[in-house]
């Protein structure tokens, strides 16, 4: 059952099936476009219509009074397509044809899609890889939920490309007869293949093959589900690796830049400023080779994830060779440099003046009370009968201790030295060594402890 409409061609009226009507309309539209500026297109169309009309009239019988697709096809075959015109006139219009741009229209693609075909349609419309839109939708969904909302709105609002004409409009292809035939051939081929095979079967075979057919249809259903889920799964894996590689690349890149741009005295790693380390090692080369050794695998992961997302080839051979050899050279250099200079760095750090152990005498003779405040104090009983009580510890820790005198009280207080951006600065406890007499005056506060 087909919908029909009634039309008037060159003074004759016809009842015509709707899709046949569209085909005829497209055919005439092509001829109109075929006519150059020196040709009166309307006149040509009316001439052609006046020839077509009696031809169609001949195809009507008392038993068939509707013009069908086959009728239109047969008339077009006699009249010829614009491609036929070109050939017979001896014009080479093929190049012009390809320049002929059709205004794209936004549709959802029902043939290649992951969820609703929205991203595929947007990609076709803007002539870019639809993966960009997929990634954008997913990212925007994670960021604010906006992506999901936008997707759902587009899913509802954008029509699906159903007819051949819409499919061509979506791809921005000219609606030539050849393009239509290409589309319908693809669709028909699938159906005909199955029919032919089925017709070759003997009757007994048909009955026997019913269970196989049922099994086959289940298998097909399963295949279809897999083929629908497969791309989603692949897409998600690709997206995951894309995010990981981008994050890692960003981390390595920012870290390396930070290290390279360190020119002021900063305590990023220890109580020794980086500038001091610069002097010990070929710092620049270590950072560069280190960056390459970590960044190149991240780049490979990035390319891999993009290949997965876009269903394209992973990497060209030449690029692969270049990346791999750069990676090996920088990796080997990085390891060699590290092995060569790490002992120097440790030596430098160990022998840095700020962290050498020293002692400092604390005068507590007149004090009635010794208040020891802070978790970094360990108080010891002096077993060696030293003349004066003293503190023992690293320069940097001893310098953090503030001694306050208040009447007869003495307070030893821990003052944190503010070091910004230090990843690995930890204070070590200061030992306070007192004789028995003084020890009895000690009052502990905030985690200081006596060790016996």
């Amino acid at each position, binding site marked *: 059952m087909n919908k029909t409409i009634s039309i008037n061609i060159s003074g004759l009226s016809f009842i015509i099936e709707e899709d046949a009507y569209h085909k005829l309309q497209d055919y005439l539209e092509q001829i109109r476009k075929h006519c150059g500026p*020196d*040709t009166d297109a309307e006149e040509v169309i009316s*001439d052609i219509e006046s*020839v077509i009309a009696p031809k169609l009239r001949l195809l009507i019988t008392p038993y068939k009074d509707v013009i069908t697709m086959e009728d239109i096809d047969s008339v077009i*075959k006699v009249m*010829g397509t614009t491609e*036929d015109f070109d050939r017979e*006139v*001896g014009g080479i219009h093929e190049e012009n044809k390809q320049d002929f741009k059709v205004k794209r229209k936004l549709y959802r693609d029902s043939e290649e899609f992951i969820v609703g075909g929205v991203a595929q349609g947007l990609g076709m419309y803007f002539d870019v890889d639809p993966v960009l839109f997929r990634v954008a939708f997913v990212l925007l969904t994670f960021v604010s939920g906006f992506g999901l909302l936008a997707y759902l709105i587009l899913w509802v609002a954008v029509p699906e490309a159903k007819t051949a004409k819409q499919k061509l409009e979506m791809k921005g292809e000219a609606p030539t007869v050849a393009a239509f035939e290409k589309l319908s051939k693809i669709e028909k081929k699938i159906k005909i293949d199955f029919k032919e095979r089925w017709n070759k079967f003997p009757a007994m075979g048909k009955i026997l093959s019913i269970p196989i057919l049922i099994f086959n249809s289940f298998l097909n259903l399963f295949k279809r589900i897999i083929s629908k889920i497969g791309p989603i799964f692949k897409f998600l894996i690709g997206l995951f690796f894309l995010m990981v590689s981008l994050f890692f690349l960003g981390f390595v890149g920012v870290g390396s830049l930070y290290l390279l741009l360190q020119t002021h005295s900063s305590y990023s790693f220890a109580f020794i400023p980086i500038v001091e380390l610069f002097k010990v090692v070929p710092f620049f080369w270590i950072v560069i080779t280190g960056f390459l050794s970590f960044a190149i695998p991240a780049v490979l992961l990035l390319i891999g994830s993009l290949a997965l997302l876009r269903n394209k080839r992973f990497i060209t051979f030449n690029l692969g060779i270049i990346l791999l050899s750069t990676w090996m050279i920088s990796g080997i250099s990085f390891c060699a440099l590290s092995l060569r200079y790490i002992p120097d760095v440790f030596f430098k750090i160990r022998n840095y003046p700020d962290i050498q152990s020293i002692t400092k005498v604390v005068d507590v003779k007149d004090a009635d009370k010794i208040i020891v405040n802070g978790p970094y104090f360990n108080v010891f009983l002096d077993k060696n009968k030293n003349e004066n009580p003293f503190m023992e510890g690293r320069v940097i820790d001893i310098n953090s201790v503030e001694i306050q005198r208040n009447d007869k009280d003495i307070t030893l207080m821990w003052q944190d030295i503010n070091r910004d951006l230090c990843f690995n600065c930890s204070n070590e406890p200061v030992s306070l060594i007192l004789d028995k007499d003084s020890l009895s005056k000690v009052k502990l506060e905030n985690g200081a402890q006596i060790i016996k």
Partner: protein
Amino acid sequence: MEQNDFQKSLDNAEAQMRKGVLEYAILLLIAKKKIYANEIISGLQDVHLVVVEGTIYPLLSRLKNSDLLKYSWEESKSGPPRKYYSITNKGQKFLDGCDAQWQTLEKAINILKK
């Protein structure tokens, strides 16, 4: 692939040779007598210059716009009025020019073929 390229260049050569011939042929038919589109088509199909029927309509329109031919509507006994095409003075001069050119070409090719 090579076969394909060969076919392409053959098609190309054919297209180059055909260029303008169809206009010439139409003018030749019209110059003999007043004639309508179907007669032109069957005349051309008889000598295998065209296969499909639609080709001549854009050409007729173009020739008319160049004042090489004109048409008039005339009643027919078996159907709607028909467009009868006839040649103009300008068209006749154009045709004479084409004839001269064609003779030159024909002569040249015939001599070369011997």
